[in-house]
Structure formats: C-alpha cells, structure tokens
C-alpha cells in the first residue's frame, strides 16, 4: 500500500494546479516543495511597507546582491528589497553553464515558486503555434492541437480569473475574460496612430491573471503594482491565493516544505515509479515516500534534473530517457528591448494608480500573406509611462528648480520589448555536471544554451518594425536593439522532456505521461515541444489540468 495516491514535485504554477486537480478528483496527494513555507497574507512580510520602512528604502543592498543574488538581481524591473526573499539565492544554489554558453536561471525557491513573482500574462496558443513544428520541420510535431486544449484553457481561466479584451484574432485566441484593464493616454495615442497606418497590427492591453472583478473570495486588483511582494487581496493568481486553498479544502493534501526530491524510484518488475527519495534542505534528513503516481512540476530545469538523477539499471541515462532526448531541446523566448522612445503630443495627460499590466502587440509576421526571411514570429510587450522623480538623479539640475520640476511627472516614454519564438535545438540542453555538486550534495545541472540565426533574424525584424511604428506614431526614438538578452532572460524556459507521439523521439505523450514510465507525468515547462511567441504559463496550467484528469481516469482503469 503506497503512502499516497500521488506525489507532486514542486508547488509553483503547475504544482499547485496538479495538487488541486488531483485532490479534487479524490486522490490523496503529497506536494513537496524545496523551499520554505510562505502562507497567503501572513507570509508576505514586506507587502505593506513604505520605502522609508525598509533598511535600504526598497533599493536593496547592492553588494549583497552582487555576492549572493548575482543572477536574480539582474531583473531590475521585478527583483527588489521588498521581494528578494521570493527569489533563489544564487550563491547557495549554484548551477553550471557549459563552456562558451550562457543561461541566466531565474528561480523562486519557496512555497508557490515563481507563481508569487510571475508576470501574470496569460495567452492561449493557436493552431499556428501547435502546428509550427510540423509546418517547418524544426522539432517534432505536437500530438495535440488547439481543440484538445481549448476546454482546459476555459477551465483554467474560469478558476484563476484572467482580465483581457476579446479581439477575434486567430493567432491569439480569445478566452473567458474578466473586463480588461485600460490603456493609458500614451498607449491610446500610439495605438491610434499605429493601427491606422499598419492594418492587421493590434496594440492591446495584456491578458493578465490580475482580476478586475471578485473571483470567489479573492478581491479585485487595487492597482498597487506591488504584486511580487505577495498580494493579500488575492488579486492575482498564485498557488497561495488560488490553487493551494482549493487543494487544502479537500482535506486530501499533505504539504511538505524545505524538502528537495533527490530522485524518483523505479521498479523494473512493474515498470512503474514507486515513489521519491528526499533530502531536507534545512535538516539534511533523508526521507522516502511511496505513491501510485508522480507529477513532475519542479520547473523546467529542476524537473529535468530530477529525472536525470533518477538513474537505474533499466534507465542508466535518466528516468524515462529511452529516447535519449531527456534534457535536450531546451528553449526560451529570445528577448530584446526592440525600441524605447519619447511619446510626443500627450504631455497634458496623466494617469492615476499602478496598473500591474502591460500592452501587447500579438504576432503579425509570417501569418496570412506575410512571408519573412526567418521562420515563425515575435510579439511585443511593453507600455507607456511618464518618468518619475528618479529622473532627477540622472539629469543635470539642482536646488529649487530641481525640486519644483520633480513635483510632477516627466516625459512620456514607450517601450516595445520583443519575444521571439525559439527554435528547438538539440544542442541546447540540460545535463548533470560530472563533478560539481549543489548545497544538498546533488549533482549540479549544467545548462548549454545559445540562440541561433533564426532568433537573431526575428529580433532584427522586431527592432526595425518597432522603430518604424514608433516613428510613425510621432515618437522620438531613444534607443533600439536586436541583440538578444542572455538565454533564460524571458524566464520562459521550456523543453527538456518534450511531448511527442513517437516514444523514440520524445519523453512524454499527448497526456504528459512518460512513454517509458506510465505513472510519471511531466506537466511543467519541461514538456514543451515548441515555444510560440507568447507567454507559456496558461498553457502549462491547461496541460496540467488536462493531464491530471487523464491520469486519474487511467488510475481508476488500472492503466497506470
């Protein structure tokens, strides 16, 4: 008799969903999180603090960040003194980069994982996206299409709450939306001028898991713009605000924090996984738990790490790796700040409140009649805002004149950042370092990653398009670039245990079930076979819910 019906490894966006769906379907579930417990509301220690109540006024100890958060602190738009405890300590959690390659790995090692700090953008994938690998032959065909996932997108959106506008675009299917947030004056100005001159391009508000109406007991967004500290209103989707309470309400969830999964155990006689071995991250205690099935939701790279560590006579190169593809085809959207400009003509307009949402321009390249010299596409995210008092520290001026000038907002700025689709490439891979270990004594993951000519060509087009559109909107260009940020910068790492119909070429099947080990499911970003050019988290959630439903029926049929 197993200890649990299911073990869920990880408590982030997909771990929370797996726990909710499996417990609600009657299973007794153990969810294991490597980081500390952070409870909703009471655990958000800096949420309500003003800058002057923080030791460094919210700016943080730069030398500490250089020593211990040298990767995480690069995300200056998101990482700060209020929320630094929601990011992994880089010094204490080392990983390796393959020689000559670079990958910035952003992590949240706590209950809720990156669901506490994510960008909250929620996009459905279209048939163009699920069909992309088949269409141009890069990667393997997804064994699923939009119709397979659509009801699960509905299911997820209805539960978490997604605000957004219905636009009727084939490339970015509409969902079940709460009322959209609004574009500010600068964005309205640019939208009107760009859409009038470029038919087929749409500048719209982001579809965001910030709710604009109450969802169950969660209150709507208060426009504080401090989501990453944790939100006691529950106004954005996180494990804490949403899936964890649902899973706990069933009475069937056991939650274990400060515990890392060393490996999944496999019984060659039955061909199934039997449970996991664990190490306490604080007390170093070793443990072992058995279950009838395992859901891997540790985050793309850590999920692959667990599977690679789970070697046995039957699987000498990692659990479920008879295809030899485990760890390969790691991807991340190629990002660049395509253009930044001053908006002219709206200096008499202002806004009030911190809207925790951006604008997007959905993909318009390589669809319809448009054909480019690169494959697939890119989308933009960005927004307009008026510069704040910080400008006073970076420009000439002092005395009464400076103080007077800073009493009001500065000029309007607009940024267009590009997310380009990343082609699957076997050389971009996660492996285990032969000698280096992490703080638990486990082999460090080594990441080999670089962008290729296609991503670079897409970003060049994104740069020239962004420049052209902003100039057409009468803006003054300040800077443009097509140089991709380091891999990992989008924090959309995907792949490593890709989905496919052929067991010889993929790790999981159309229901995220390991071809080799029927009671192991991979439903986080590791399962992705392509990246599209929009944010992937909503798709992870939909695939997780879909896989959980399939897993429970298979379990009931005795098929796992």
């Amino acid at each position, binding site marked *: 008799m197993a200890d649990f019906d299911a073990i869920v490894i990880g408590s982030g966006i997909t771990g929370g969903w797996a726990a909710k769906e499996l417990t609600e379907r009657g299973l007794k579930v153990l969810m294991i999180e490597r980081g500390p417990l952070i409870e909703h509301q009471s655990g958000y220690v800096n949420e*309500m603090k*003003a*800058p*002057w109540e923080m*030791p*460094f*006024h*919210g*700016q*943080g*100890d*730069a*030398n*500490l960040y*250089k020593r211990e958060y040298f990767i995480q602190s690069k995300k*200056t*738009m998101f990482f700060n003194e209020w929320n630094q405890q929601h990011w992994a300590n880089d010094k204490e959690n080392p990983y390796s980069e393959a020689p000559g390659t670079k990958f910035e790995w952003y992590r949240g090692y706590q209950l809720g994982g990156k669901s506490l700090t994510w960008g909250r953008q929620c996009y459905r994938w279209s048939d163009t996206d699920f069909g992309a690998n088949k269409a141009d032959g890069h990667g393997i065909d997804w064994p699923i299409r939009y119709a397979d996932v659509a009801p699960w997108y509905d299911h997820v959106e209805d539960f978490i709450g997604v605000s957004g506008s219905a636009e009727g675009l084939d490339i970015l299917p509409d969902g079940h939306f709460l009322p959209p*947030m*609004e*574009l*500010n*004056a600068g964005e*309205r100005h640019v939208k009107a001028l760009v859409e009038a001159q470029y038919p087929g391009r749409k500048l719209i508000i982001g579809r965001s898991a910030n709710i604009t109406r109450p969802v169950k007991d969660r209150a709507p967004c*208060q*426009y*504080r*713009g*401090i989501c990453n500290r944790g939100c006691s209103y529950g106004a954005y989707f996180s494990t804490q605000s949403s899936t964890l309470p649902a899973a706990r309400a069933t009475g069937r969830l056991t939650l274990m924090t400060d515990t890392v999964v060393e490996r999944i155990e496999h019984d060659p006689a039955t061909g199934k996984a039997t449970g996991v071995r664990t190490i306490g991250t604080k007390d170093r205690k070793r443990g072992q738990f058995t279950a009838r099935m395992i859901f891997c939701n540790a985050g793309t790279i850590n999920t692959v790490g667990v599977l690679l560590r789970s070697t046995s006579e039957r699987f000498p190169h990692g659990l479920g790796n008879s295809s030899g593809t485990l760890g390969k085809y790691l991807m991340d959207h190629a990002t660049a700040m395509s253009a930044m400009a001053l908006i002219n003509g709206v*200096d*008499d*307009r*202002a*806004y*009030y*409140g*911190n*809207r925790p949402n951006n604008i997007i321009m959905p993909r318009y390249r390589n669809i319809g009649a448009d054909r480019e010299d690169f494959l697939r596409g890119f989308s933009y995210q960005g927004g307009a*805002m*008026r*510069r*704040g*008092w*910080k400008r*006073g*520290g*970076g*420009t*000439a*001026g*002092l*005395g*009464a004149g*400076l*103080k*007077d000038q*800073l*009493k*009001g*907002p500065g000029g309007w700025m607009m940024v267009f950042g590009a997310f380009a689709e990343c082609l699957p490439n076997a050389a971009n891979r996660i492996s285990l370092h032969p000698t280096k270990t992490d703080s638990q004594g486990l082999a460090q993951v080594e990441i080999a990653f670089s962008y290729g000519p296609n991503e670079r060509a897409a970003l060049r087009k994104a740069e020239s398009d962004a420049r052209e559109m902003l100039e057409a909107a009468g803006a003054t260009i300040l800077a443009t670039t097509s140089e991709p940020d380091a891999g990992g910068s989008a924090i959309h790492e995907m792949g490593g245990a890709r989905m496919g119909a052929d067991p010889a070429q993929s790790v999981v099947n159309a229901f995220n079930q390991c071809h080799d080990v029927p009671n192991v499911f991979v439903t986080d970003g590791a399962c992705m076979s392509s990246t599209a050019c929009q944010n992937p988290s909503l798709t992870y959630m939909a695939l997780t819910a879909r896989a959980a439903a399939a897993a429970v029926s298979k379990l009931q049929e005795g098929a796992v």
Partner: protein
Amino acid sequence: GFHAWLASGPGAASPDFLRQIANQVIPRSRTPGAGEVPEVLAFVNRAMPAGLYGGSETTLGALERALDGMVASSRFVKATSADQVKVLTAIDKDAFAHRAEAGQEAAVHALWRCVKEAIVVGYYTSETGGAHELAYELVPGRFDPDVPLGSVPYLSNYWLENVF
C-alpha cells in the same frame, strides 16, 4: 571593522558635508530640504558602503576632498552657500553634459553623480519627500488611465516609473 574605519577614519567626510550638499540638491521649500531629514542622511550613509549607485565607504570623503580643492578657503563646508552653489552647479552641468569614456573623466564627476542620485532617491523614498512633498498612496484602489495633468495626485510610489 575595516569598513567602519574607512567610513569614519581620516578620509571620511566631515559631519556637515552630506547635510550641506543634500540641502543644495533639494533645498527647503514648503517642505524640508533633503539635508534636514535624518532618514535621508541615514539612507545615503548606508547606501554608499552597500555599493548602491557605484558608491563605496570612501565616496563621500573623496567627493568632499575634491570639492575642497575647488573653493578659495580649501574647505567646502566652510564656503558660503552661494560659493557652494556655484561650484556644484558647474560640476553638475559637466557631470551630466557628456559621459566621458570610463577613466577619462574627472573623478569628481563620477563621485557627484553617485552621491546626487543617492540624495534624490533617499529624499523621495523618505516620508518627508515621498508622502509630504509628493503623495504616497499604497492602495490607489483604481486606475484612471487618461486624465488631465494636475487633476489627480502625483504619487511618489509609481514603482516602475522610478526603477530607471
């Protein structure tokens, strides 16, 4: 230890130095000047050794030494306010007029940019600057997307607007 010694030893800034330059950057109006607000001074004194804006334990002392060499009395803190303004205005203008190649510009310009940024940030993230000079509203409760300038309070806590 060593860091405390650096910040308070022979190369340290005079007790009045930071207070004086903070008031020159952000003077008293209907609200106090930056140099009158203890939490602004405390912030700058913590920010420099913590490496913010490229500062270090020696930044304030080095800036004072450099400014001493630019006033007739050789003691910046003893100069008249008018003389201080004259010196600082010239440095400020040059420091932001052109960014010379690293290592090519006068050291005083880099020191000035660092300390000035810390004073501005310290002031508008203090209760005096953030909540009295400007408005601070943790819970706006609504988003007005497009209103006439001046028709709504201007918040010091526009977070994203003050990252860069």
